[in-house]
């Protein structure tokens, strides 16, 4: 009664495969090694993951097939708008009477009930910080998607065709870059409906120049590579060369610029919200602005909402730096 595993002896394998086997390391070990090697990058990735989890599960999620309700991180439920994020909160014992304005905890310091304290309206700051992640991340990813697709397209064709087209396009980008980003945003927002969609489009538009510049410089060096020449000799046309041979090789810088760009967009959105020029909603910038009015009496709202912005931006910057080192060491400054 031989066990299956015993039928194959290690020695039966050819030498090369033994070597490969010995060197095969589990994913967990690999990640651990990377984490020790790049502590700052790991810290950044952790910040980003926390933000993503907060954005995804802020209001709780129903898992369709399993029929399970994942709990809401923020406990931001309509019937408990004011008493969210209480780890000891028991929905059955919930008493709406306790929510009458006179008994509200306004501007309370952090307690077990309210981890980050409450704001001037008695709302839980932790809940609003968690919910705010959704807006920052959503606007960031939306804007960067626009910027990346448009910027990569312009960058590739600009560098590929070069010549007059390139010179003209670069002047247009120069002109866009001449504006301070925040003022350009205000210019666009001043003539468009104040909606989240237009905010995303405006932020994406402002980001195009950065993405296209980086893609363009990458394509310039790729264009002369032997494998591109070889593909051309084989009869590939311009479109095929760009789509199949050049674009895939610009992915590393694009991923890096996407990650770092998210941090920039989050700051821009927070600045606009801070100034009260962005569409209303639960946003970190707007919370910081509100909290500023009570900065001396109850600084919690301002401190924690600002901390959320800082950690999010720091996270994306550090994660982007680490990604650059891993994906494309040539880009290291």
């Amino acid at each position, binding site marked *: 009664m031989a066990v299956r595993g015993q039928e194959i002896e290690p020695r039966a394998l050819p030498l090369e495969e033994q070597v490969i086997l010995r060197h095969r390391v589990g994913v967990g070990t690999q990640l651990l090694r990377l984490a020790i090697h790049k502590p700052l990058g790991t810290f950044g990735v952790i910040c980003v993951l926390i933000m993503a989890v907060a954005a995804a599960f802020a209001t709780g999620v129903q898992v369709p097939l399993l029929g399970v309700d994942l709990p809401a991180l923020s406990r931001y439920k309509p019937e408990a708008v004011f008493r969210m994020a209480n780890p000891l909160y028991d929905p059955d014992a919930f008493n709406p009477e306790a929510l009458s304005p006179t008994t509200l905890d306004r501007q309370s310091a952090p307690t077990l009930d309210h981890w980050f304290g409450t704001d001037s309206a008695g709302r839980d700051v932790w809940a609003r910080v968690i919910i705010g992640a959704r807006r920052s991340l959503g606007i960031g990813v939306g804007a960067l998607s626009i910027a990346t697709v448009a910027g990569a397209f312009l960058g590739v064709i600009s560098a590929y065709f070069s010549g007059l087209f390139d010179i003209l396009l670069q002047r247009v980008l120069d*002109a866009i870059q001449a504006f301070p980003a925040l003022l350009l945003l*205000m210019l666009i927002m001043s*003539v468009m409906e104040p909606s989240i969609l237009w905010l995303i489009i405006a932020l994406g538009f402002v980001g195009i120049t950065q993405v296209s510049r980086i893609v363009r410089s990458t394509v310039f060096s790729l264009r002369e590579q032997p494998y591109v020449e070889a593909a051309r000799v084989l009869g590939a046309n311009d479109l095929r060369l760009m789509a199949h041979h050049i674009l895939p090789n610009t992915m590393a810088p694009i991923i890096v610029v996407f990650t770092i760009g998210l941090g920039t967009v989050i700051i821009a959105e927070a600045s606009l919200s*801070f100034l009260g020029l962005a569409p209303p909603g639960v946003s970190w910038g707007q919370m910081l602005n509100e909290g500023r009015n009570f900065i*001396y009496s109850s600084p919690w709202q301002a*401190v924690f909402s*600002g*901390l959320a912005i800082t950690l999010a931006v*720091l996270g994306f*910057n550090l994660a982007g730096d680490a990604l650059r080192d891993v994906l494309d060491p040539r880009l290291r400054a």
Partner: protein
Amino acid sequence: MQQYIARRLLLNIPVLFLVVTFVFLASHARPDWAERRAAQGFTTGMGYEEAVHQIRKVMGTDKPLYAQYGDYLLDVVKLDFGTSLLTRNPVMSELKDRWGTSIELGILEIVVACIISIPIGVISAIRQDTWLDYILRFVAILGLAIPNFYLATLLLLVAFNWFNWSPPITTYAGFFSNPMENLKSMAIPALAGGFAVGAVVMRLLRSQLLEVLRQDYVRTAWAKGLRERTVITRHALKNAMIPVFTVLGFMLAAMFGGNVVLESMFRLPGIGQFVVISMQQNDFPVVQGIILLVAMILVLTNLVVDLSYAWLDPRIRYG
């Protein structure tokens, strides 16, 4: 050198033209929307249609687009950047008293940035890969991530809790009428804005200095037996500062953007605060006029920085 100047000028003129065109397109792309929003704020005593008609006349949007574009270009050449819907004054005259505050804040920020970043950058470079270097670099990374309005908020807290001091918010004195009071209101915004600029400068200075310190002439200076201080300041730092100077010039745009927030946060009556107020009051001609003016000034500043870079570093001219 002349050829270099000529080439730079030729590249910048179309950019200036495009900047004007871009603001024109942005402000005239959706005239109906701008009118409607503007009309909401200015219907005092008028019917809605009447107000829209009035605003159309003021903004000139009753003419065809190409005629508007021609008028617009002509106005810009005559340095007419539009008229406020609210006060009916030209934008230029509204700005007259506001330049000083913005420029002062910018200068203070650069001073703060240099005071912070030059020593830190030098220490970080000459003690490369020590724990001190790691800490200083982390501070710089943090400086890039922290929004200046959050840093300013934290500074307010620190000043109040540790030194029992808070800046005057409701009153503002000009620098020339009352320098002490003026600096009191400027202190925290200048520190907060300067820290962000300093973080960029420090990172750049560190990498530049590391490169320069490996050059032959620095080794020669060491070999002559000069003191460390002399080698660093006289031979290395001087050359490492050239790109820093350029980057400071190019960062003016970013600084101005950041100062829009700081100025309105601390109620400093500068251009940035004026843009935000005009925006909140739906006074679009002012918003667009200021933005155009600022962008044009920045294009010209970049040109000057470019040219002075070529003058400082002869290698650029022939590159």
